[in-house]
């Protein structure tokens, strides 16, 4: 195992101090006491979203291809890690079927991405309808920074009415100290109309090996190819970002070897913006 070059985990001491500070003074936390709180992603994305991913709202994530589920949940975990840096737990809801289909959340991996497993509460339910019920309960609870829920298949249960309910619950749940963020992961992108504030299609992007990795043949940092398909408050877009798990921040990434945008659907897929 000694030959294995891994990725460094976030610095625990620094993080602990930050969390302690955020408990003492919410202003030192990542956001402010406001209905209009946002989780900042990265400057170009925030410009489109009006300052960041809206708190107290529901956001839908779907993998661009079925095998990109890992990247999709990775993005959700990254957002959750940013959403409640100081306090607040994260509730992860999935059906047993979803666990078999996509694997369950794995503690050490979450830790490496910047979300401490100690902050995570995992709920396994048997029916998709239960996922929505539990998500609503979780969003209303003011002790949770973020609720991540997985829906398999078409996810027809989460229709316009259901997502509207979830959005309202999320708005009730937002408070000075927790962000009340609802992230609904659909295992398959679906045309079902939804009341979610944003809808994302997510893929993993080939990483750029860092200095260490270039020597040893490693993979480098996690990269996401984010497509904002629907945005209630602004335009959509597509970006390539890199997740810095030390700082728990998204960095705009330079495009390397990304597949060209689909030419047959020019209106859906704008050119990749790089910064």
């Amino acid at each position, binding site marked *: *195992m000694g030959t*294995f*070059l891994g*990725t*460094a*985990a976030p610095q*625990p*001491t620094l993080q602990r101090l930050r969390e302690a500070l955020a408990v003492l003074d919410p202003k030192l936390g990542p956001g402010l006491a406001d209905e209009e709180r946002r989780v900042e992603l990265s400057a170009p994305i925030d410009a489109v979203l009006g300052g960041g991913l809206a708190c107290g709202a529901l956001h839908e994530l779907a993998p661009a291809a079925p*095998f*990109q*589920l*890992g*990247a999709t949940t*990775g*993005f959700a*975990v*990254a957002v959750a890690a940013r959403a409640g840096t100081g*306090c*607040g737990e994260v*509730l992860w809801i999935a059906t047993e079927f979803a666990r078999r289909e996509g*694997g*369950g*959340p*794995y*503690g*050490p*991996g979450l*830790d*490496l*991405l910047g979300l401490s*497993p*100690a902050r*995570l*509460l*995992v*709920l*396994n*339910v048997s029916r998709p309808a*239960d996922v929505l*019920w*539990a998500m609503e*309960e*979780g969003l209303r609870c*003011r*002790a*949770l920074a973020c609720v991540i829920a997985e829906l398999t298949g078409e996810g027809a249960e989460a229709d316009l009415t259901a997502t509207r309910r979830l959005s309202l619950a999320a708005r009730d749940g937002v408070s000075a*100290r927790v962000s009340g963020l609802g992230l609904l992961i659909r295992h398959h992108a679906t045309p079902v109309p939804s009341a979610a504030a944003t809808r994302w299609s997510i*893929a*993993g992007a*080939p*990483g750029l*090996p860092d200095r260490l990795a270039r020597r*040893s*043949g490693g*993979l480098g940092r*996690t*990269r*996401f*190819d984010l497509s904002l398909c629907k945005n209630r408050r602004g335009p959509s877009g597509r970006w390539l970002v890199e*997740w810095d798990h030390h700082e728990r921040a998204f960095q705009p990434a330079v495009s390397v070897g990304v597949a060209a945008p689909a030419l047959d659907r020019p209106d859906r897929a704008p050119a990749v913006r790089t910064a």
Partner: protein
Amino acid sequence: MWLRRLSTDRIERRLSAPHNAPRVVIASIEQAQRIVAMNDAAAQLRLKPDMQLADARAMYPSLPVFEADFDADRNLLEAIAGWCDRYTPLVGLDPPDGLFLDITGCTHLFNGEATLARDLLTRLRQQGFAARAAVADTPGCAWGVARYGRQGVVPRGGNEAAMLPLPVAALRIDAGTVADLKTSGLVTVGDLASRPRAPFAARFGKGLMFRLDQALGRTDESIRPRLPVPAAMAEQRFPDPIAREEDVLGTIEQLAGRLAAVLERRGEGGRLFQVALFRADGTVHRLELGTGSPLRNPPRVRKLFAERLAVLGDACDPGFGYDMVRLSAMVTERSDSIQTGLAGGDHAEELAHLVDRLGARFGLRRVTRLVPQDTHIPEYAVAAVPAHAPAAFLSAKEQPDDQAQDSLFPVRPLHLFERPEFVEAVAQVPDGPPARFSWRRTMHHVVRVEGPERIEMQWWRDDRGNRLARDYFRVESRTGLRAWLYREGFYSRQTPHPHWYLHGLFA
């Protein structure tokens, strides 16, 4: 309490035919079909238990016969015991056809022992059960008197007077001993009790004397309750049954208020609550509910039971209504009132409440936390521990040291499959990293690889298979899929054709 005709009562409750026809229940004992139970009408025909069916048929060719179903009898006895919970929480089974009720301290609720026994027998008779009951100081005495004596209340200290005239069979001893005693001329308990003990102990073993002492109250005997005895309970009876859900929940809240007073005096809170709903027709619904932290706040108890009732739905059909509701705190735990801090306190409480609500709805075992375990095998490195478990189980074992984790920590995936998925992979050299692999019918071309990380299995624990070492690779495909693959076994040394598995997905 003795249910004299349990088997035939069970059968007759189902039948619409007149109940006064003779009926017998048979079972195969010692290569012959023998009568094991019969109803009163059959008893009047001088049929005897243990008689062979052929003999009975010779006497009465048209005798209706039923096969014995001991499991059904047992279930019925359990159901009756559950129903008897309305009198006391301490109900012990005495198979095949008896029940012990410890009514110490319960009798005032029914205006005395005699009234309680009468009420019990009347209600059982209304439901079609022939029963005899006796109230006595010791279970042994009550057992004997209910079966062989005048049923009713044996006055305090009257054990000997009640037992001595009874036949020796009243001592709960097997039929062989009874027959032996009879041949030696000992017919009643009194005959036995007046003789010196030592010869009997030598002849029949200690059991006989032990039973005698139990019946006469010379040794203690405790009733083994069928259900765990609650730490605290409160109950409410209704002259008119209630059926509406709001009424039931309102009653639960009211009972929780009474329970809270008791628990508060003890400085405790309930961790496991049980509501027993006694339906007017004898069915008992029991709803159990655990909590994440000691709880005694009545509105919360109500809310949790509301969730539980919502899930159960029709499984908890009130029928003609419930005539008694009992709320018990089965498990309690010390709960000191905590002074909430300025910052964190309310959050912790709110979280505990959320866990309780989710637990009430889906079962507490489904709300879990991921706790790191001290093992290097990936699938066991994290255990899902129920979130309501004591804090000692939830806190991780101390990490060896933070520095080690900070510098070079083995990379682990975000999603781990409980069962690694078989993939077809092609490697350039048999013990090298994969060049491409096919997972779920999609071919992925590997662009970049990290690894191998070799993980040896615990051969000393695993006695069948699964001992092959694994070489893990973190691969990235051309399309951006990052996966955790491993090859099981070393090429040629352990296996000629190593298989590849996909064990997890990275972000």
